[in-house]
């Protein structure tokens, strides 16, 4: 979408955990928004993460991805990262490079556009080669 996209995925965003892996991301807007204004999707080496089993942590609180539209009071400060926890049978092998793609749709709550006055959709997709760091603490 624009220059702020470069901050969405940091070089150390991918970490193996005992139950799979974590993926951290930041928002590409200029100000904080609550989780209710976001949709997130990601792939690792082309395999999509499963929204049914993935959870998201911000401010020390953890939710199912499916809960995000209801979380109008859980804010992601613009300088903070949210963490996706992806569950799989074994930890993601660390110290290997993966192609990670993350799409973040922001529904801007104060800019309404079009005949129906829908929130502006500010969508960004970034792809990056990330080396998976060693096993973190998990959830």
């Amino acid at each position: 979408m624009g220059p702020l996209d470069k901050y969405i995925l940091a070089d150390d965003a991918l970490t193996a955990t005992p139950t799979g892996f974590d993926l951290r991301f930041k928002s590409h807007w200029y100000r904080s928004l609550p989780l209710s204004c976001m949709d997130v999707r990601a792939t690792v080496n082309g395999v999509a993460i499963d929204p049914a089993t993935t959870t998201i942590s911000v401010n020390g609180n953890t939710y199912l991805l499916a809960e995000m539209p209801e979380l109008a009071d859980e804010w992601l400060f613009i300088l903070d990262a949210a963490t996706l926890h992806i569950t799989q049978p074994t930890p993601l092998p660390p110290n290997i490079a993966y192609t990670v793609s993350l799409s973040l749709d922001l529904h801007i709550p104060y800019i309404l556009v079009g005949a129906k006055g829908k929130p502006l959709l500010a969508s960004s997709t970034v792809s990056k080669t990330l080396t998976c760091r060693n096993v973190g603490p998990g959830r």
Partner: protein
Amino acid sequence: MIVQDSSIKLCTSLFSFAYEWNSGQYSLDGMLAEAKRISLGNGLEIIGFQSLKGFPTLSPEAIRAVQKLIDKYGFERACLDANVDIAVRRHRYLTPDETVEYILPQLRVAKQLGFPVLRVQLMAGPAVMRKLAPFAEKANVKLGMELHTPYGVEHPAVLVLRELYAEMDTPYLGFIPDFGTSMRAIPDALLGSFRAVGVTDALIELTKEIWHKDLPMPAKFGELQERAAALGATPPQIGRLNMAFSMNGRQRPDQWAKIVPQTVHLHGKFYGFDDDGNEPSIDYAAILKVFYEGGYQGYVASEYEGSAFTDAYSGFDMVAKHQALCQRILTELNIAHAVSIS
């Protein structure tokens, strides 16, 4: 010749440093230190949801810490920006009463931090503003409705507010004109971002041609859709080109004269400069003259928006250039004024 100080003062909006802020390289202290270093004026504008974690729920300690930082660098508090997030819930809009409740904590922070003006946005309609007015008066904080394009002074939504303001006749209800509402060209930074996604020069010329036409917005979108498709533009490209119309207003600068008495702050939007230090897409001399001659006394905040389209420039350098431009124009206005009364 002795020239009196202009009644319009310079101000830095931290919005201008979005690219630097999001990098995570600055604390609020570091950001204010750098802003102070490059600022010609003492005014400061902060966007609550950008700069203050937890906003608008801030502890007394957090409030004191921000106060201390603002004072440390000797900034004058010009404006705190609220956001009117009526679509913060995914499946329905906030009601007017809920919108009032959403804004009140932000108004409280403005009071606690000592900001004289709270920026609000057009999603707060007349019903909301009517209810907020007594709270603003009690807090001694003026509510400044941002007039961002497409909300020019004659826009129906603005006309309704002007009627309300006339009826309530209180200094606590005002406007914040945004210079992006009255532009003379599409910024090069935006055009460059079009080229980056493969838009051809022919399409850019077409977009410019339609932008300059005196047509209602939907008619412009329609004409662009038809003619750009004929030139081979893809739907995503056309969607992007629509931004040229939606982000860059064409209101005549002299139209601002109608609301100068209700103006409580100014957003000096800008995108870039030519070799002479002028903003090619916004006629600063013409716009500032309208507010100067209308008797506006307050700040013009430097609001750099180019970082939405390019990372080729430092926000700090751009604000320094913007304030030099504004100061040059204000000095010229002061000299002209001094000559006219001598």
